[in-house]
């Protein structure tokens, strides 16, 4: 199995997220950056499939130079090689442009299976899997909480997470599969893995090398535009209801004023 897994470096999940005041893109400089947590599940699933069926896991990311840290993490978990698409011209690309660029790179790798997370914790668009499948012309299976591949039959079957259970969905390979956090418990890299990561092949591509035109990507030609942004309002101090026999009624009253009941 030739498996491609997409990963993204995002501002630390727990950090206060901000937009850069100059161009309203995600501010990555003022915070610690980490691998999108859900991507760890994607990497883990790719590794498990490889361990069961053999093959190779290639990590693909698009992001600034610093995103190489996230690639290193995936390689130290056990992925075999990586492609890092990085170029100043990519700065400010929206989901449509990003999917175009990533699909271009992924297509050159001729994968049997592409694994994505359901969403990244920064923009939370949740559309990359679908966009990639469309651009690559592959079937897509989303919200997978279990993945079973049958390389001989050339199929992949998933348990698709639903509100009251799951649906069994099958597709022919190659396919794009989006995973949810329930799917596995990602491993912690071992020191041996960390040391080995440094020696694994890493291809760094600029826009031109990836076969893209700088005019197709980046903030200037983005299909969506951020006009304005407001920081989240500071948290209001709570209301304390003293129970003098009518506590229940007072809480109900409060919930009603908040239009919660």
């Amino acid at each position: 199995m030739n498996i491609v897994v997409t990963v993204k470096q995002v501002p630390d999940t727990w950090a206060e997220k901000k937009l850069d005041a100059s161009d309203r893109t995600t501010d990555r400089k003022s915070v610690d950056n980490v691998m999108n947590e859900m991507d760890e599940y994607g990497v883990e699933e790719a590794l498990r499939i490889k361990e069961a069926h053999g093959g190779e896991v290639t990590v693909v990311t698009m992001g600034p130079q610093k995103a190489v840290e996230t690639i290193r993490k995936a390689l130290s978990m056990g992925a075999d090689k990586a492609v890092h698409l990085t170029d100043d011209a990519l700065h400010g690309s929206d989901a449509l442009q990003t999917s175009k660029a990533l699909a271009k790179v992924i297509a050159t790798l001729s994968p049997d299976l592409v694994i994505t997370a359901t969403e990244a914790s920064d923009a939370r668009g949740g559309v990359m899997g679908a966009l990639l499948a469309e651009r690559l012309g592959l079937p897509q299976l989303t919200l997978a909480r279990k993945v079973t591949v049958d390389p001989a039959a050339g199929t992949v079957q998933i348990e698709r997470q639903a509100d009251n259970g799951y649906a069994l969905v099958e597709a022919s390979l190659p396919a794009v599969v989006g995973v949810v956090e329930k799917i596995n418990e990602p491993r912690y890299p071992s020191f041996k893995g960390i040391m080995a990561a440094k020696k694994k092949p890493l291809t760094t591509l600029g826009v031109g090398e990836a076969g893209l035109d700088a005019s197709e990507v980046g903030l200037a030609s983005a299909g969506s535009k951020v006009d304005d942004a407001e920081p989240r309002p500071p948290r209001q101090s709570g209301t304390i209801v003293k129970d003098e026999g009518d506590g229940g009624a007072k809480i109900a009253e409060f919930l009603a004023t908040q239009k919660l009941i």
Partner: protein
Amino acid sequence: MPDTRLTDEQESLRSTVADFAREVVAPVAGRHDEDQTFPYEVVEGMAKMGLFGLPFPEEYGGMGGDFFALCLAIEELARADSSVAITLEAGCCLGAMPIYRFGTEAQKQEWLHRLCSGEALGAFGLTEPDAGSDAGGTRTTAVLDGGEWVINGSKSFITNSGTDITKLVTATAVTATRDDGQKEISSIIVPVGTPGFSAGPPYSKVGWHASDTHPLTFADVRVPEANLLGTRGRGYANFLSILDEGRIAISALAVGLAQACVDESITYARARTQFGRPIGANQAIAFKIAEMETRTHVARTAYYDAASRMAAGRPFKKEAAIAKLFSSEAAVTNAREATQIHGGYGFMNEFPVARHWRDSKILEIGEGTSEVQKLLIARQLGL
């Protein structure tokens, strides 16, 4: 924020262990402390990451890292739970290291793979009821009889000596009296399960509740002559050199605890309001935390220095003792101050600082008391 003194690999290891400590160790630390149980599931997770093999070469099943890497892992674990950190410290520095440093090739092959993988733990039996700081006062004896050592005596306070996965103890014993009347002390490997060897019930301790500590008894324990570890008569000297290294690791553990006290105190000082403002807005509290941070920073610098000297093959005995002395006292002071900042809540076991406070004091005692560190430093100064 990453420390610029660390290489990329060291920083990756540090942050990986930090994630593990936060996600796996911290959530169960309170429960194991309260129940005084050994955290087998946590130890298994550490084993999977290869932490028990960190400073050992790959040919013996190790990770091919160095002692500095081990110290970084110990520091991060101690930020969540000292018991877990001492389990790793004692497993590597006291259990496996003597075999790696002094063992024959056969002994290394027999034991190191299992110890490095974390499936087995080894213990270090030096301290006795009447031989603590004066570890040369060993009364345990080992006599050769028909190609076997016959060991009699007892050991006190031995870490990792009674878990389900403990497989061996290396013990110091008097093997002869020299011509000058001095004791000849050697160290001998005793596999768990050897008849006559037993671990007594666990101690009831002030802290380190999830760390395994037992008294040991040797009653006519017979092991093959080949279980002698290192040169006959060098047992005491060898064990002391093991402790020189171990001190750097204990210092790392102390820094982890000191840092945890800073972290908890900052969070609490911001959140706790009295007299209409956060307690951290009082200079009395803010200065306390500034001092705690200063102690932690200096202590970390001291152990980084000792560990780098050791890695570079330079003398580090004095620096290791300085790091151990300073950082253990920093840990105890920080734990006391953190408890003070938490007020009455700091005296409640559900707050981690209460555990840190109970866990801190041993750091000024184990692997050489503060007084012994001063003796060592003074001796290095020619006094």
